[in-house]
């Protein structure tokens, strides 16, 4: 035990004396969570639009007022000629143009219908889609308020309710993802780098010749990172609760336990990587390409798994991060307990055991 404490102390010296690893350990989580929280967002806010109003009557004015009153849009420009639409888009600021037809009010009264053309800049399809949807719903609202007194014979009124994230804040979606990435990064990449570093320096050989058993060496290298990862997870949760008002509906204890489980999964992966990689550089490359990319692309963190092609959906199952994201989203947003995430938890445990088993086997082969 005493040997062990000395070992861990030494590991902390390594970490705290290396600015690079300190930055990855503590700067990165904070930077990432703030970036994802503030800068990178799927929400529509203050989108600049332009109006081309051919009729300029009371109805169009009311609609325009409604739109400019919403926090989603800012009317930047009033266009007078059709030909100016293109110029407005090309300048890049304007994301949508509303084109009211001539005699809007008159048509509405006479023929019971009038047309607005919504033109969006679809260089960013997601935003274009959202803009269209938002404007549509503003128009629908307006229409309903106009039709209040009229009785329509058949009417289907959809009542939508967004549960678990009623304000559709994208930060709620990002926090679980960012937490996953960071735990993965710190646990898997940092451990694999620190183990391969000992190999590169030749100190690993010295450690293996010492009375320490190989598994003690590995555990000694890994324990400090468990500790640091737990701190990181806590920092992320605290930041998201206090800065982004992210709710934690479920039990904090369960959240903590699941996080520790995922940390161990990542560490096991890190150990496995270090049995394959001979240099720090290759350990880093394997971690980045082999772990980070799949986590970002295939775990459902940014792109929904259900809309992926079938083969990718199958592949996503072998990515531990996918299961962890399901678990923490459930706990944080839906407030579910173990009864709902036991399956995912078992999968993670299974994967962890598999990775550890594989590393032990690889390790033995190396020693032969």
């Amino acid at each position, binding site marked *: 035990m005493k*040997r062990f404490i000395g*070992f861990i102390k030494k590991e902390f010296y390594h970490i705290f004396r290396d600015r690079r690893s300190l930055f990855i350990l503590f700067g990165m989580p904070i930077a990432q969570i703030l970036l994802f929280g503030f800068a990178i967002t799927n929400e529509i806010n203050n989108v600049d639009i332009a109006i081309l109003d051919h009729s300029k009557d009371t109805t169009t004015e009311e609609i325009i007022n409604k739109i400019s009153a919403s926090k989603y849009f800012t009317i930047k420009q009033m266009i007078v000629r059709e030909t100016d639409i293109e110029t407005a888009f090309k300048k890049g600021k304007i994301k949508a143009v509303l084109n009211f037809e001539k005699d809007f009010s008159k048509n509405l009264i006479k023929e019971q219908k009038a047309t607005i053309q919504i033109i969006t800049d679809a260089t960013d399809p997601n935003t274009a889609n959202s803009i269209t949807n938002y404007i549509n719903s503003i128009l629908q609202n307006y229409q309903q308020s106009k039709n209040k007194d009229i009785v329509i014979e058949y009417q289907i009124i959809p009542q939508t309710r967004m549960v678990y994230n009623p304000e559709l804040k994208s930060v709620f979606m990002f926090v679980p993802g960012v937490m996953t990435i960071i735990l993965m990064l710190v646990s898997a990449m940092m451990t694999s780098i620190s183990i391969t570093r000992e190999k590169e320096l030749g100190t690993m050989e*010295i450690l293996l010749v010492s*009375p320490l058993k190989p598994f003690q060496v590995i555990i000694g290298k890994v324990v400090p990172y468990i500790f640091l990862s737990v701190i990181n997870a806590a920092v992320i949760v605290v930041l998201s609760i206090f800065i982004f008002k992210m709710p934690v509906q479920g039990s904090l204890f369960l959240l903590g336990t699941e996080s520790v489980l995922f940390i161990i999964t990542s560490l096991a992966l890190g150990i496995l990587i270090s049995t394959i990689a001979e240099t720090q550089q290759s350990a880093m490359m394997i971690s980045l390409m082999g772990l980070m990319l799949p986590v970002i692309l295939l775990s459902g963190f940014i792109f929904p798994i259900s809309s992926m092609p079938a083969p990718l959906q199958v592949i996503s199952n072998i990515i531990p991060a996918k299961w962890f994201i399901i678990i923490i989203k459930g706990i944080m947003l839906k407030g579910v307990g173990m009864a709902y995430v036991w399956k995912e938890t078992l999968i993670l445990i299974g994967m962890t055991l598999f990775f550890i088993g594989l590393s032990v086997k690889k390790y033995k082969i190396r020693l032969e």
Partner: protein
Amino acid sequence: MKEENVIEVNQLTKTFGDFTAVNTISFEVKKGEIFGFLGANGAGKTTAMKMLIGISKPSSGQATVAGFDVYSQPENIKKNIGYMSQKFALYDDLTVKENITFFGGIYGLSKKKIKEKREELISELGLENISNKLVGSLPLGWKQKLSFSVSLLHEPKIVFLDEPTGGVDPITRRQFWEMIYKAADQGTTIFVTTHYMDEAEYCDRVSIMVEGKIEALDTPKKLKEQFKVDSMNDVFLKLARIPSPTLPKGKGKNTDCN
């Protein structure tokens, strides 16, 4: 004084696939002896050494180190040996003191013992003024002397040195060998690989490995007589020849780095 063997090797062999890196070598090393283990790069020195220090399993043959069997008791061997590798192997980002404390710790020395040893070692090497400096800032020669002293911290019966003087200047090498002599005088057995032939002259006995086999084993003096030459360098050249570009069945694999 009774001469006891601290290393006994009999027909030890290591194969990788169809390549025989170490081919039925046999020798004994006596207590307190400085045993030189020579050979060209790729001759199998490091592979042989790795079997003796318990980090590589032999393919066949027997060997005991410090009285323990290399197959069944590697853990006991590890407690009784010190090891210094050809790569300099202390931690650059730890101070001199921290390195000593750490390595003392993993060999299970008590706090008190570590402190005692640490102070002794620092004063012996004259490192008082820089004991709190990071090892990375020291010149290579000092690092190597420190590394050697650290490998002796737990008072091992045998210390294995794998090309310990690679890349240092002649004066430091000289000082290094004085340290080796001192350790040997105190009863520590030294098992050293080198390819500096002048260093071979300092050894009590040397073995020369060629292509996995031990081709010669005796005192430097007797070897020189046997081969009728004046220096160990010539002995080595006569034996080792310069390996031809067409290496044996080994497909040119360099087993030294395994």
